[in-house]
């Protein structure tokens, strides 16, 4: 059983909706939408086989702006609704759009269980570290100490790192991208679509109104080269303007090193990225890296192959039907102890 492909070549116009996009000018969501609209035709499924599901929040308006089947539901529940859609019809390509509040606060339970089950869906997590639609309250990913409307003296809560959460919940796919770097964002979306199982992409997204610049220490053009490590499977973990810096494993920890004659370190000493390994150790450490001591890791951090919920579920269904003695409800009604009066 597989998702049916389109018999004709599709373009982004096939997925553009006639709805007015109502996000704020300059919002990072616009570029995420543009990337997704570019990726869907490349995936090649029939346009009727895409299904977008969302909860509540700015990012959750996403399904209205893509011309596919779509379900804009209630706060935090997109993962549960998507689960029902996918179990009911495994031949749909199911995409979830969610924000940091929707996914990791009110929907936290559904989020971790979706991942634990390795449900075959694609999950784009728009992380702007703030509640935008309710106008600026702190979320579970807001930095400690930050002043917001509900934290006038600074946030006390320790924030979630979505990558840690995904890997900790036995996630098989986690990637990270940035809203204002569309080329890499598109690449990451393509990879998430290729992966079988729950694929989560955290997009660092800027809320121009309520949390402008929250990611700028990582995403600004001037600092990008030194603060972003773009991972590629099978390649050494190098970054910096001239790829002069790298990551090594020292003891049980990662460390940033500078290559060159001064340090005596060459490319051969640098860690090679293996996204496919079952062991979560390095993946977890990569997900945790952040400035000032480390660059932040982007691209596919983890893509481990493991049977998906869909595969296991469909196998059980087939096995049960193979040797079944009860094949219709009439059989069931008349099974076991019955008697005539």
């Amino acid at each position: 059983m597989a998702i049916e492909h389109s018999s004709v070549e599709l373009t982004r116009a096939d997925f553009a909706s006639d709805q007015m996009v109502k996000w704020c000018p300059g919002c990072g969501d616009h570029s995420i939408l543009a990337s997704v609209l570019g990726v869907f035709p490349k995936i090649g499924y029939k346009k009727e086989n895409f299904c977008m599901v969302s909860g509540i929040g700015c990012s959750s308006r996403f399904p209205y702006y893509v011309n596919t089947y779509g379900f804009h539901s209630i706060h935090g529940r997109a993962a549960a609704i998507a689960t029902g859609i996918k179990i009911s019809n495994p031949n749909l390509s199911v995409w979830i759009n969610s924000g940091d509040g929707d996914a990791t606060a009110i929907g936290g339970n559904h989020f971790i269980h979706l991942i634990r089950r390795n449900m075959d869906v694609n999950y784009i997590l728009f992380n702007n570290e703030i509640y935008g639609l309710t106008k600026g309250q702190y979320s579970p990913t807001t930095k400690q100490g930050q002043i917001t409307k509900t934290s006038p003296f600074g946030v006390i809560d320790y924030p979630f790192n979505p990558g840690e959460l995904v890997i900790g919940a036995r996630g098989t796919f986690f990637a990270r991208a940035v809203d204002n770097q569309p080329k890499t964002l598109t690449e990451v979306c393509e990879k998430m679509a290729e992966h079988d199982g729950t694929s989560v992409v955290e997009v660092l997204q800027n809320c121009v109104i309520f949390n402008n610049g929250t990611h700028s220490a990582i995403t600004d053009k001037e600092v990008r080269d030194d603060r972003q490590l773009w991972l590629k499977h099978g390649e050494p973990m190098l970054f910096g303007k001239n790829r002069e810096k790298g990551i090594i494993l020292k003891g049980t920890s990662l460390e940033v090193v500078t290559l060159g004659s001064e340090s005596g370190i060459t490319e051969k000493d640098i860690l090679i990225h293996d996204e496919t390994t079952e062991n979560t150790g390095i993946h977890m450490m990569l997900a945790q890296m952040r400035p000032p001591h480390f660059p932040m890791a982007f691209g596919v951090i983890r893509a481990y192959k493991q049977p998906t919920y869909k595969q296991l579920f469909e196998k059980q269904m087939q096995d049960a039907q193979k040797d079944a003695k009860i094949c219709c409800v009439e059989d069931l009604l008349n099974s076991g102890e019955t008697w005539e009066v």
Partner: protein
Amino acid sequence: MNKKEIIKRDNVVVKFVGDSGDGMQLTGTLFSDTSALDGNDIATFPDYPAEIRAPHNTVAGVSGFQVHIGKRIYSSGDEADVLVAMNPASLISNLKWVKRGGIIIIDADTFTEEAIAKAGYTSSPLNDESLAQNYHFIKAPVTSMTTEAVKDIFTDRKSAEKCRNMFALGMIFFIFGKSLEHTDAYLEKKFKKNPAVVEANKAVIRAGFNFCENTDVLEAQIQVETAEITKGKYRNITGNIATAWGLLAAAEKAGLKLFLGSYPITPATDILVELAKHKSLGARVFQAEDEIAGICSAIGASFAGSLACTSTSGPGLSLKSEAIGLAVMTELPLVIVDVQRGGPSTGLPTKTEQSDLSQALFGRNGEAPCIVLAASSSANCFDWAFEAARLALEHMTPCILLTDGYLGNGSQLFRIPKMADLPTIHPPFAKENDPEYMPYKRDMETLVRQWAIPGMEGLRHRIGGLEKSDGKGAVSTDNANHQLMTDYRKKKVERIANRIPDQKVMGADNAELLVVGWGGTQGALKLAVQEMQEEGKSVAFTHFNYIMPLPKNTGEMLKRYKKIVVCELNMGQFVNYLRMNFEGINFHQYNKVQGLPFVVSELKERFNQILEEK
């Protein structure tokens, strides 16, 4: 061998009580199954504590199973004709449920000083003369005779004592002249891999049987009348299994996959457990991480074209409220089964009540009407689950089916329907590539929208919890549109009244008193009214299964009667709903919230009282 006299009875209630783990549920089930095979009509009700194994020999740990057998059985019965009490705690807590002059069998070996004190007796009931005067009190040495019967099979006391319940069962089988055949077959199958256990249990049943036959503890045997019921093929079924099967039947008749998204909760779990078995019938069952995910996964499955259901009890229904509103707004078919229990909060998880009615009718934000139905017997849970699914699918709306712990766990004879006799269900599917398709375009007679399933060509659309524009279904905050859509959603549910049968009355149109019930109390109410009618009292009875909408003739029917009493296991939720709908009618009430079903005697007392009032 003593030849015993035979006494004939129309029906009897037998109650088995003991410590949790004494095997009372199994004992009761074997007796009721045997009776059913023997041609009796039956109904059963298990009564078990919320704790899995409460402290040994305490009242908190008493577990019971009541069996009502006879000619025509509507409920699991009130007072017991025969009580089997396996320890002092079970005797002290159940004596009040035994008829004067009834038979009480106790395991005298368990009435040790310590156990007697632990049960709360101040002096030994064995020496209580009132017991012997008021009841046929049989002090059987059950434990020691059981141990004796298996001494060649088991050397350890623990294994031997596990068979005690079979001794009691053997005694009951003798009293009612029942064959041991069914139980033998059950044991052979159940303990196939352990022949010693089969042999031991068989020996103990016979020891119990012979004990009654060969001693003078009993002078008579009781022969219970066989059933006077419609000819057909029958089986025994619990309400929860009947509910599960009704949903399966509806899915087959609609040509849809069945999806159940559910989270374990007493007393509804058995619906989930039952459907999880039926992958071979295509049931797609998902045990969710919580109640909310249970219903939300079902809403997703409904969007994706399944007959989608979720099962729960009161606290779970509360958690599902917001999502039911989403199903109302998106106008998707959905069946929500609420097996009601005592509330509020965690309440009385293992006890029955009808106190979720208001929650089912009104427990959502906004104007959020949905269909509410109630099953009224363990067996008709099948029919009402089917009807809930039919109405939800054909009218594109969520439907709440109320059953309760009494119906769900209780069992009854079930006349097996033929699938060909059940109606075909016709969901309003959209046609692929229909250029006219719009998500909120309605059939103007029923106000039902079309169902377009992801994957269907040419029907891509978006739905959601935000208000939608009429027809096109775009997000809309237009004032007049919200009024229009609110009216549509309300009328859509109200108009279902055009497609359901009129409410029927048992008894005369001009009776002095109309007894009104709904849901799981039908058996006791019907019997109470029948008995009073036989006594020449002017009483009629009507019982509601369609709650929202009510049958069209409801108001006109109620207005015919001078006196009306509405009986329910809550503080008056249905009567207040009737008051809200039908002004100017004076309703009497009979309400009870004790975690117990109605008993016929209390109902008759109240009805007589109302009849006598000027």
